[in-house]
Structures are given as C-alpha cells and as structure tokens.
C-alpha cells in the first residue's frame, strides 16, 4: 500500500472508531502494512492535524490514537452540544448495556464480550455517573466490579433494574455458550474467564441484581486508566 493511502486509511479508521485505537489494532486491521510504515504515517497525520487553523487534533492517549476537538474551541463545542443532547456513542452504549445486564461485572469480563480495550469507555461512564464501582471481585488481582447507578435508571426512564427489557437472545446466547463450554462468558463469567477462577455469586438474571445495591455511589475507587498499549 502506498504511503498516501496508508495515511488516508488510518485517518478513516481512527475517525470511525471513536474510541482510542491502539497501534496493535490498527496493525491487525491493516495486516499488509509493516508497523514501521504505520508509525510513520501516524506521525505524519499527527503533524498535519496539529496545524494552527485546525479544529481537530490527533492525540495519543492511554488506549491509542484518537481524534479530538482542539481545546481552543471547547466553549463553542459545549454550546453546540448543549443545544441538543447527543446520542450515546456506540462504545458507550454497548458497554453500559453489558454492565446493566450483567452487573456487577469486571473490566476483563466486559472486554471479553466487546473484544476491545474498554478502560477509557468505563472511565467515561464513571465520569458521566452512569456506572459506579461496586466493590472488588474475590479473584486474583481483585479486579473492580462495575454496576449501574440511579442516574442510569433515570436516564433510561427505569424505576429499577427489573424494568430492563427481557432479552430472549440473552438466554439463547447463554445456552449456546453453555453448550460449547467455551468462549466469552455470559453467565457466571467467573467460571470460564481466564482471569478469574472464582468470584462472588452473580445473579444469573439481570432482574435479580438488587436495586438496593445502587444506593451507594462508591466513587472512591476510580479505576486506573490502565495504560495498556498494544
């Protein structure tokens, strides 16, 4: 692939992802291109986006590369977004949906389901108070457990978690995975997740997780934005 095209493709990929994309993921997507060339194209792109009259910058953050608005325009960006509340982005929506239905759940478990690093997304959900830390899992490394908040319920117009729509697919998928006895866990993640051999008792159905546990807003333990880079 010629340099010009590599750069254009990277621009597409990073833009469409929304979440930070690691070099490893970019490399896995553009298999044909050697990493050296990717690095070169990325640094060229970064420079192109750093010009004075630009409204978007290409930043390297914890999880990888991401386009963001230039800080100078924050005032107007806020003003625009305030006129019409945005939709939740796909990564945020997927992650909060997983947490809602499978709470309490750890980050590795969420990542096993989504197939991508979710540190930044979870961080954002914590900031937006849609998700809270609900303790630690009794498993090696004692990973943090995440659950939804009262604000989450409010946002979706739910009085409690029992109001979450039943997902027939959820059962089907669980059954399918059960039958296979492998693959990312849906139910009882602890049993099958490589990271966690044992864990506290997770309600098997989403309806069971008690709304009461939503009371506490244990924001004390922000999950470290573990800067894992591919």
């Amino acid at each position, binding site marked *: 692939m010629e340099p010009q095209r590599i750069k254009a493709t990277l621009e*597409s990929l990073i*833009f*469409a992802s*929304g979440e930070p994309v690691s070099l490893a993921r970019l490399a896995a997507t553009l298999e044909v291109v050697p990493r050296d060339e990717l690095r070169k194209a990325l640094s060229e792109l970064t420079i192109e986006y750093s010009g004075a009259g630009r409204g978007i910058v290409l930043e390297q953050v914890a999880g990888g590369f991401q*386009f*963001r*608005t230039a800080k100078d325009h*924050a005032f107007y*960006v*806020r003003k625009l*977004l*305030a006129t*019409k*509340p*945005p*939709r*939740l*982005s*796909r*990564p*945020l*929506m*997927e992650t*909060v*949906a*997983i947490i*809602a*239905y499978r709470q309490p759940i750890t980050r590795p478990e969420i990542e096993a*389901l*989504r*197939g991508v690093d979710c540190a930044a997304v979870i961080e*954002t959900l914590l*900031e*937006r*108070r*849609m998700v809270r830390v609900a303790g630690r899992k009794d498993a090696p490394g004692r990973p943090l457990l995440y659950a939804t*908040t009262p*604000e*989450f319920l*409010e*946002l*979706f*117009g*739910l009085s409690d978690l029992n109001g*979450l*729509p039943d*997902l027939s*697919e*959820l059962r089907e*998928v669980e059954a*399918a*995975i059960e*039958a*296979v006895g*492998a*693959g*990312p866990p*849906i139910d009882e993640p602890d049993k099958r997740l490589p990271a966690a051999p044992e864990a506290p008792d997770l309600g098997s159905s989403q309806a069971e997780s008690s709304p009461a546990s939503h009371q506490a807003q244990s924001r004390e333990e922000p999950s470290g934005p573990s800067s894992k880079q591919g």
Partner: protein
Amino acid sequence: MSEEIEPAVFKPSVDGDPGRRFRLPVFEGPLDLLLHLIKRSELDVHEVTASVITEQYLEYLEMLDSLNLEVAGEYLVMAATLLLIKSFSLLPHADAEGAEEGEELKGDLVARLLEYQRYREAAEKLLARSILGRDVFGAPGEPIEEDSPAATYRVTLFDLVEALRAVLKRVTDQTPREITLRDIPVAQCIPLILEALAQGGRVEFAALFAGFHDRPLVVATFLALLELIRRGQVRARQEGRCGTIWLDRIAPEPTPSA
C-alpha cells in the same frame, strides 16, 4: 450490489423427481412475479396480458399448489384479473362495452406494474448509494466534557437493548461453534464412523444409520460424517442420481517423516 434486487430464478422444476431439491423462487407478490415473467419473455410491460404471461403465471400458481404450498390470496386475485381480461379479449368485436371494460382493466394493471417497477428501480438506485455502515461511516462524536449530568443524553431503552444485541451477536458470530446435540458430542461419533468403515471397507450410507432410533444420535452421526468428508478422511460416492450412496475411507497419506 443489485443481487438482492434481482428477481429470483424461476425454474419450475417439478419434473417427476421427488427426491431432488430445488430452489423455490421467491416473489414479492403478484406484481413482482408478473414483472419477472414479462422480463423473462422479453416483453414490454404493456404486453402483460399476452397469453404467454397469463399461462406462465397460472403455471406458477399450479406449481405452488402441487407442492402443497399455500397460495396467498393476492396471487389468486391477480389470476382472476388476468383471466377476466383474457375473457374480454375473446368477446366478439361487436361487444364494444365489454372490450372497453377489458381495456380499462388492462390499463389499470399496466399502470400498477409501471408504478411498482418505478419504486423498484428507485430502491435499486438507493441501494447503489454510499450507505452508512456499509460504504461510509460516521464518528460517534465527542462526549460532553466535564461532569454533565447523565440525563443530558438522548437515549431510549431500545438503543440499550440494540447495543447489547449487537455485542451478543458479535460474540456468537466469533465463537467457534462445536455442535453438540443433547449429550452426544459430534467428536465422539467420528471414531465410531472410522471404525465402521475400517471393518467393511465400503459401507452404504444408509447402513451407517441402521438401528439408530434416536434422532440426536442420527444427526450427530451425520454431522460427524460431514466433518470427515470435509477433512478428506472419508469419501462419499453416489450411483447416479438418487442412487445408493457409498462411503469409503481414504487412506491417510504417508507422512514424509515416517
């Protein structure tokens, strides 16, 4: 790109061959069927009432009927219309009133077909555009900075459910499935088949299942057989169409190192 728009292949292959599988053409209703027949006969839409079209239309309905498939009411209504138009055209020329009525019916039908065809073409043109999620992609946009209350997002429960469905779908799509039926893993059937073939050399397909009264067992065995064929360990040969299927084991290639 227009694959989905292309009319299905219409092959009334109901010749006396009960065991043969064939693809049943799927039409989006009588108008779709008529347009297909017109195109196949290289006629113009205005010639929809040509007797060749009417005949083929009725043949199709008969085929459905012979397959014990329910013929939807709208197909029958259209059949009646076609026959009515035909009967008017057979009237002696003196009957001006009848001829006029026939022309009117025909005009209505042609207009409907043309109109339907227009929307179908429009659908094709739309499908040829750059489609979001297929050809082009947007960005999710930037989340609001600082701690704005969660309630400032435009979301619905529907979005939430759809998001989870997308995740689950990806998980299941990516999870390599090993098919297990009840408690009979397909893998367990494989050695049994190989054993059966080793003993008899050539085994009749049906014989493999002889004495099986348990459906899951039959299915698991069949899946195991498919797997063996895929791996090139077993070969299946048939004596002509609908003939006996013979299975035999392909000797593993001698490994160079051995």
